[in-house]
């Protein structure tokens, strides 16, 4: 070996050492949230406010990857499906412990998954519906399935499949599962990177590092690097930003998109725009008549297509998302697995819109009303811009501002013509958004009333299709049929805006929204 290559090697070694040494341990990261969590039980909760904290407290057998497109080992170091796809075997890592130091066993896994998959267990139990029975022995957990299920790895990487300590949970006071969950959620113990230390509702929550966490950091020692994370609840956007700029916070979520450009220029901050699965659209009522019995122009597919072509997404992205969004081309976000990159969406084409509308009985236009969330500046900016765009084809858009609960009640009763809406995935698989947006039997395609026999059939097949290639082609077709039927107005995808002080490293928010603090560290 000559001197030069030896020197290069030494330098490379030194660099890699210094790289791992650069990670500093300890300290507290203070993070500003826009609202507090409600209820910290992985099975019986529902809100993102809970989910995004739960993933720090509880671990799942498998985990979503940081790009949101795949699944990686979690508490289980290996998983394998039988050739007929009806059995899945998972191997637990050796020596796993909960945050109180008690061992995490295959029996805990069986119990947790059994609890999560019972039909009474909240809104999420259906993600584990294909499981017929669970067997636990030693380090091995065997899932017997009713049918092959390509979505199962993603489901096992989702918060509701979190592994909980059976003994501690059943020892919690309460007569039934719901009461025990209430008691246990006051002081939850999981095996995630952090454990709840203190929670003053509406004010702050402190998570301290779980000393028994299994995952190792760059320095070879157990993660997380931080001693603790403190979540401060600051509902007002401006206050959250002021607190960050004053150094009272090290990170703040839900930065209004209107302020992203300004914060990007702040030399003390890293203004992050993490790719999300968030898609915004206008849901249309596709039914021939409205709740009040009157005729609904939106039942004509050409009308719906015309409205889509008459919508200038690029302009809306500038007006509403201040340039941070991107055009939505499929009903699912481009970060969703099996998103079809060949989808065209509806490019802005006024001539086409006019021609489509001209072929209907609404040649000279019509009036249509849209429900917006009152107090939402985004909704108002969006809809007033659309008012002008659609006026060009003679469509008069009437904006109806309602508070969120009223709006929900109205469209749940199918009593609406249009409404604004956004969606984010919770599971690393396209099946979730598809059951909601495109499959009628779930909730009437998010109450649009859209129904396609072909999609229903394709979807059912795709739920058992183990070949990823075939599944991708099924989803390609689903996305195409949906686009041609245009039950919604396609708008845009938007990122998760998080502002961090420059001294914060290694934090990531994945497209599913999970905030990953395990690998975060602070410059000294």
């Amino acid at each position, binding site marked *: 070996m000559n001197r030069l290559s030896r020197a290069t090697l030494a330098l490379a070694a030194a660099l890699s050492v210094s790289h791992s040494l650069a990670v500093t341990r300890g300290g507290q990261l203070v993070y500003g949230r826009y609202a507090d969590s409600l209820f910290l039980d992985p099975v019986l909760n529902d809100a993102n406010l809970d989910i995004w904290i739960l993933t720090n407290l509880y671990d799942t057998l498998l985990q979503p990857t940081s790009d949101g497109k795949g699944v990686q080992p979690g508490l289980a170091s290996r998983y394998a499906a039988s050739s007929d796809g009806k059995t899945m075997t998972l191997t637990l890592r050796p020596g796993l412990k909960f945050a109180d130091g008690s061992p995490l066993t295959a029996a805990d896994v069986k119990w947790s998954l059994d609890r999560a998959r019972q039909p009474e267990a909240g809104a999420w139990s259906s993600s584990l519906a294909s499981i017929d029975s669970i067997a636990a022995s030693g380090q091995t957990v065997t899932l017997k399935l009713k049918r092959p299920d390509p979505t199962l790895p993603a489901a096992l990487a989702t918060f509701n499949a979190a592994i909980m300590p059976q003994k501690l949970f059943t020892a919690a006071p309460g007569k039934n599962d719901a009461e025990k969950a209430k008691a246990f959620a006051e002081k939850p113990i999981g095996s995630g990177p952090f454990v709840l230390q203190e929670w003053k509702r509406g004010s702050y929550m402190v998570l301290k590092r779980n000393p028994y966490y299994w995952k190792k950091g760059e320095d070879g020692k157990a993660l997380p690097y931080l001693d603790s994370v403190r979540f401060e609840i*600051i509902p*007002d956007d401006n206050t959250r930003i002021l607190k960050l700029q004053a150094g009272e916070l090290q990170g703040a979520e839900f930065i209004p998109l209107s302020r992203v450009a300004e914060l990007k220029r702040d030399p003390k901050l890293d203004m992050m725009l993490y790719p999300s699965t968030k898609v915004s659209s206008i849901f249309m009522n596709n039914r021939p008549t409205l709740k009040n019995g009157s005729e609904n122009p939106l039942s004509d597919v050409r009308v719906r297509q015309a409205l889509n072509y008459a919508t200038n997404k690029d302009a809306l992205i500038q007006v509403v998302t201040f340039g941070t969004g991107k055009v939505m081309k499929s009903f699912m976000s481009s970060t969703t697995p099996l998103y079809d990159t060949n989808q065209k969406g509806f490019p802005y084409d006024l001539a086409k819109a006019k021609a489509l509308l001209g072929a209907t009985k609404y040649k000279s236009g019509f009036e249509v009303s849209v429900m917006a969330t009152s107090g939402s500046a985004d909704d108002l900016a969006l809809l007033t811009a659309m008012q002008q765009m659609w006026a060009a084809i003679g469509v008069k858009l009437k904006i109806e501002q309602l508070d969120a609960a009223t709006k929900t009640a109205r469209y749940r009763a199918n009593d609406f013509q249009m409404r604004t809406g956004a969606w984010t995935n919770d599971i690393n698989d396209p099946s979730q958004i598809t059951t909601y947006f495109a499959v009628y039997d779930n909730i009437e395609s998010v109450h649009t009333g859209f129904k396609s026999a072909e999609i229903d059939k394709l979807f059912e097949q795709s739920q058992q299709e183990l070949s990823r290639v075939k599944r991708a082609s099924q989803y390609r077709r689903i996305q195409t049929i949906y686009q041609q039927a245009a039950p919604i107005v396609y708008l845009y995808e938007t990122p998760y805006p998080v502002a961090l002080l420059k001294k914060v490293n290694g934090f990531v928010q994945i497209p599913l929204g999970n905030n990953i603090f395990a690998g975060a560290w602070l410059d000294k």
Partner: protein
Amino acid sequence: MHTTYVLKRLLQIIPTFLAVMLLVFLLVRLLPGDPASAILGDRATTEIVERTNRELGLDQPLPVQFLIFARNLLSGDLGDSISLKVPVMRLILERLPVTLFLTVYAAVLGVLMALPLAVLAAVRRNTWIDGVIRGVFQVGLSLPVFYVALQLLTLLGARLGWFPIGGYGEGFGGHLYHLFLPALTLGLNLAAVLVRTLRSAVIEVLTAEYVEFARAKGMRPRVILSRHVLRNALISTVTLLGLNIGALIGGAVITETVFAIPGVGRLMVDAIFGRDYPVIQGLTLTFAVLVSLVFLMTDLLHARLDPRTELS
């Protein structure tokens, strides 16, 4: 005599309480949208929403629901929050002291600002000093609370760094320090109301015959001010303050949001948006009791300051 009066007034709170109880129970249920939908969000199926409503007892007929609510209330149980799944009583006990601290703090700051300035404006009435004082507070009165809050935050909090930006702090000193800006925001608003009325009250007293008489007797102006004018000015201040406590709590809803203070104002807003019936009911009842007590205290103080008041 005072004791019987107080007892009588306290007893009078009970029918008020019952009326508020029935009213809020019905009003909350008149709101469109149900708690289950509000909690479960857009995606829940109809079955899940129905099941949740059943679990919460919201599928029962209204009279039955009211009877359960009333029965629990009589045993001191306000029920559990639907979204937070903890007893409402605990939530209120945790958060009410924060709002009360802020309200009292704001009232004290408001009076400390209003009293001397009102007297000064009255004594120097129709001079430029009077004009400036009245002008400044007139502007203050017309500015929305959230705007004043944000300006104070930006200037005294972020730019000068004198005060923390939001939060509640630890211990009495910590609360005083952390809540200074929000209390100042509310206090300024209150002072603006007080200054106007106080100034005219002081002017009225200053021109009253007994003051003229005192002055003629050769009593020193300082003594006149403290013995006659201030005492009378305080009477109207107390009444006004009492009447404004409701407004102060209303203002606290906004200030608590802007300054990230975990008080009942914010709890109420969240509960209304989330259709969290037990929390809305529990808080409304608490406010009703509080306001009744404040009115009672106002009357007592009034009687104390003005011996002519007859309590009956």
